[in-house]
């Protein structure tokens, strides 16, 4: 192995190679062919952040409106599922060719927003729909205005599901933001695409290294969001799923007996 791995078809230790790539200081700083891993991570997070911010601005208000009023639910589910079927890579290339390379970032953001909307919309919508109607009734009975019911009752209770949607959306966007590299943008996808195009052992090592970095970034962001969720969700709602199910099981038979008696 002294004269370099992979020559004359000898088997190579993939993990060793990838580890060597990941720990090579040269890959962590700017050089003539790459910006370096920290800059690529920053780019990747920028693409992800942009997409998530716009997707939240679109999906959450719609989800809240539909979830609160119950109007157009089937439409939301339909549109969200339709968005899920979009082939991101094809769409982004189509958009870049239509809009021009100068607007590649905008094209990428549009596609990633489309990707992030379904889980956000589904999470928000189902979060609000799942709020116990009796709680909403009680709030209304106490004289709360509709706006307050939404913001002070429904949204806080729906928060775990909404944040679940956010986490799913973020994970998907982090993984998919790699396609940025296809139209000359940066991000960690650069390593995957370039490595494949180099077609050498060095290239494939870089490809695997890039994939590891994307996965690691996804995990770190996911853990961070899970931490955020713990902080912002009201302590009273923790383990709520569990206790609510119990309540339901208890109330239903009671209703039935009442009906039977009357």
């Amino acid at each position, binding site marked *: 192995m002294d004269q370099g791995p992979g020559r004359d078809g000898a088997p190579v230790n993939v993990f060793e190679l990838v580890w060597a790539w990941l720990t090579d200081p040269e890959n962590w700083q700017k050089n*003539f062919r790459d910006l370096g891993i920290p800059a690529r991570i920053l780019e990747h997070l920028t693409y992800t952040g942009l997409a998530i911010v716009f997707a939240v601005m679109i999906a959450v208000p719609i989800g809240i409106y539909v979830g609160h009023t119950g109007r157009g639910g089937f439409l939301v589910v339909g549109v969200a599922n339709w968005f899920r079927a979009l082939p991101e890579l094809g769409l982004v290339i189509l958009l870049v060719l239509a809009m021009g390379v*100068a607007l590649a970032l905008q094209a990428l953001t549009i596609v990633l927003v489309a990707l992030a909307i379904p889980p956000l919309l589904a999470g928000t919508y189902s979060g609000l729909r799942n709020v116990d109607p009796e709680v909403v009734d009680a709030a209304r009975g106490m004289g709360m205005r509709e706006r307050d019911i939404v913001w002070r009752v429904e949204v806080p209770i729906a928060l775990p599901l909404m944040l679940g949607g956010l986490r799913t959306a973020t994970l998907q966007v982090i993984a998919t933001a790699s396609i940025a590299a296809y139209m000359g943008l940066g991000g960690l996808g650069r390593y995957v695409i*370039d490595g494949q195009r180099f077609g050498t052992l060095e290239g494939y090592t870089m490809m695997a290294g890039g994939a590891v970095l994307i996965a690691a970034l996804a995990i770190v962001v996911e853990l961070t969001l899970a931490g955020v969720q713990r902080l912002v969700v009201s302590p009273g709602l923790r383990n709520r799923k569990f206790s609510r199910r119990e309540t339901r099981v208890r109330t239903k038979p009671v209703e039935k007996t009442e009906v039977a008696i009357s």
Partner: protein
Amino acid sequence: MNKRLFAGVATAVVAALTMTACGGSSDPTANEPAQQPTGSGGPVAKPDKIIVGSANFPENVVLAEIYAAALAKKGITIEKKLNIGNRETYYPGLQDGSIDLMPEYTGVLLQHVNKSATETGPDDVYAALQKALPPNLTVLEKSSAEDKDAIVVTKETADRWSLKSIEDLKAHAGEVIFGGPPEIANRPDGLPGFKKNYDLEFKEFRPLDTGGPLTVNALKTNVVQAADLFTTDPAITVNNFVVLDDPKNNFAAQNVVPLINSAKASDEVKQVLNAISAKLTTEILIDLNAKLSAPDKPDASKVAADWLASAGIS
């Protein structure tokens, strides 16, 4: 039991491979009719029949059509096997005699027969190629037409900085974002080659596609100020792009050259093909490519015939 099973599987695999191999070499890609109906036809090969092959991209197909049509005009029986595939696929066919003639490119062909070749200048590559080819294959005269990578700028950029060659770009390298296929960051004739041959280090490299619409669009819209395109890309003439000279031969020469089975290279055949090579230029290749990619998708044989007529080769 296990042994027998293994033997059975092995036999099946060998049989399958043999069949594929047969299919590969004897597959006539057969829907191309013989150009010249004067021959008796059928599988009885006349001794002077020449089988013309081509790789699977339009420019190579039209070059093969040009060779075929010009030879047919001399009364030589021609059979066409066009659109075969890449070099890995068709080169064995040249060696076993199922293809006699191919339009080739000097640099890539040299790399194919000798992986460690380092020549880059047109004449060096050509000389090295003549030496490296097996005795049963010969290259005839090379043409001046080249299909290779080149650094290309817009007319405005070329005028503003009075750029003629890659050397002139050095003074402005700090302002230039360079676009091209991702692998050019790593190829010996890519960024490392620019640095070695021209001491040229661009401000930034923007990985795009391989001479495709992204690169053309990026150059046109000034997202990149210089780009790697193929010299025969019609986008160059359409957009008035300027191809920068490469005096240090950073990009290996890729002259179009007829590669022929030595046994078929009669004086008459040589004369016809050399006359074509003498006329072919890179501009003509651009023009042919532009015609081929026109909206009405003309047939390559028609484009070839038109060019032969206009070039006065008959």
